[in-house]
């Protein structure tokens, strides 16, 4: 398989973890309890760990002399290809948990399939990450139930967050050209195959949480093509602050 296409395929996976990890990193020190604060930072650390594995691999694949940090910090906004879901802001704990929940269930099924990839490095990363993401999924699903079946206020808040973020779920399954190529080669994951299971798993938790599954006809997409929400620029402003202010230095 062409290296640049493989790199693009891997970036499509890695960018999700990168941007979600970055969002969670904003919350360290601001959690509703110390215990939850620590738990969410753990998720962020897991995601950044995965990102490093992916980017070390793309750096190795790249023809140019690149490092993991070049991939993380030195691209333009249009070159990041994470889904819109993961860049959505931490409006409140409900949004943070809803975003995590909707992503974790996808992430789990995705990594589960990625274990069958023909690319041995991706298989190794998938195997290690799957254990982490199983725990993320458990954590966020438990919280969906607590908030959904907690107080009147929490039920209202988490339902609003789910309704609001649902429009980004369709994009999780979209396939870019690189995705299609990778699938053809037996390296990539055919996301069509996990969509039904995703909806089933998510619905099950929502039902148990006494929450409504949104009934939506219109969905938002763009992240995978590098067309992001307006939040993304500000996120990158923070993330790339040092690289932009002090170009070319080692830290």
């Amino acid at each position: 398989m062409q290296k640049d296409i493989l790199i693009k395929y891997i970036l499509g996976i890695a960018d999700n973890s990168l941007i979600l990890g970055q969002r969670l990193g904003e919350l360290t020190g601001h959690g509703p309890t110390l215990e939850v604060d620590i738990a969410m930072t753990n998720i962020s650390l897991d995601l950044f760990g995965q990102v490093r594995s992916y980017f070390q691999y793309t750096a190795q694949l790249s023809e140019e002399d690149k490092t993991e940090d070049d991939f993380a910090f030195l691209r333009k906004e249009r070159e990041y290809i994470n889904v819109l879901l993961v860049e959505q802001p931490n409006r409140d704990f409900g949004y943070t948990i809803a975003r995590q929940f909707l992503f974790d269930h996808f992430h789990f099924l995705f990594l589960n399939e990625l274990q069958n990839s023909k690319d041995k490095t991706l298989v190794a990363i998938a195997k290690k990450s799957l254990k982490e993401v199983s725990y993320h999924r458990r954590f966020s699903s438990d919280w969906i139930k607590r908030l959904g079946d907690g107080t009147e206020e929490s039920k209202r808040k988490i339902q609003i967050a789910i309704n609001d973020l649902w429009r980004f779920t369709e994009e999780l399954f979209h396939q870019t050209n690189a995705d299609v190529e990778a699938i053809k080669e037996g390296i990539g994951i055919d996301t069509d195959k996990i969509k039904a299971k995703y909806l089933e798993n998510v619905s099950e938790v929502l039902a148990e949480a006494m929450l409504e599954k949104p009934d939506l006809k219109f969905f938002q997409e763009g992240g995978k093509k590098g067309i992001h929400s307006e939040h993304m620029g500000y996120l990158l402003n923070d993330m790339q602050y040092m690289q932009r202010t002090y170009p070319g230095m080692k830290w």
Partner: protein
Amino acid sequence: MSEQEVKNLEEIFEQKIARDEKIEPKDWMPEKYRKTHIRQMSQHAHSEIIGMLPEGNWITRAPSLRRKVALLAKVQDEAGHGLYLYSACETLGISREELYEQLHTGKAKYSSIFNYPTVTWADMGAIGWLVDGAAIINQVPLCSTSFGPYARAMVRVCKEESFHQRQGYEIMLTLCRGSEEQKQMAQDALNRWWWPSLMMLGPTDDASTHTEQSMKWKLKRKTNDELRQQFIDQTIPQADILGLTIPDKDLKWNEETGHYDFGEINWDEFWQVVKGHGPCNKERLQTRVDAWENGAWVRDAAMAYSEKKAAKKVQKAS
């Protein structure tokens, strides 16, 4: 209990401590011991939690993935350390919520150094190197303090903190081996954090109110001035390796004493910050209050859910 009986108990209690025996939460203890411990342990816990904020300020802007995970893990450790220390307090019959209340209303104090802003990336280096360095000097002796839960919490804290100072020093080292601009950034951070770090070890012995009693209870093994001297003596060679200049023109090796002499500390500034008028006192406290208040509905939801679940279990069983 008669006055004489209390006196006898106190005597037995003090002898126990003198013999290096530990005091456990349910043991009899003088009211003053209990109060002093709640005060010191909670101040310590608050310092950890407030201390997350100046470094948390750079998590989203950390300049490499390696630095980012290290910083995240460090700030997370601070949350853990706060948690261990609040737990130690709770063994004395005060709840974490009450302790938060004291923090949020400004009744409780925390280490004044966290009221300074982190303005450049080099501040992450300076905090790890200097602030954690000073903290370690303060904390290591507490691993053998007389109150069991405090001593055990400190053993865990010290074990986990061993990477914190190295993390900071490595950041400084990288800056000092980098470009001229980076080295200046490191020097600037040292200039701003040096004096507050010295203040962090507490007022001078003649101005310190608690020292004698604290020594007896092993809440302190050395005086503030001794700790400060130890910190200065061990930090200066580290600054030399970095090639940085300590911002104190009176700093000089004293052959006679075998220690460094150093300049006058601006104690007016120290007391000003302690009393709430440092550059970030208001912001730090407000951030904590906001986190707590914004989290109220989340905590309530989890309790309500747990009660519903418990009720269902009872229903099923009957």
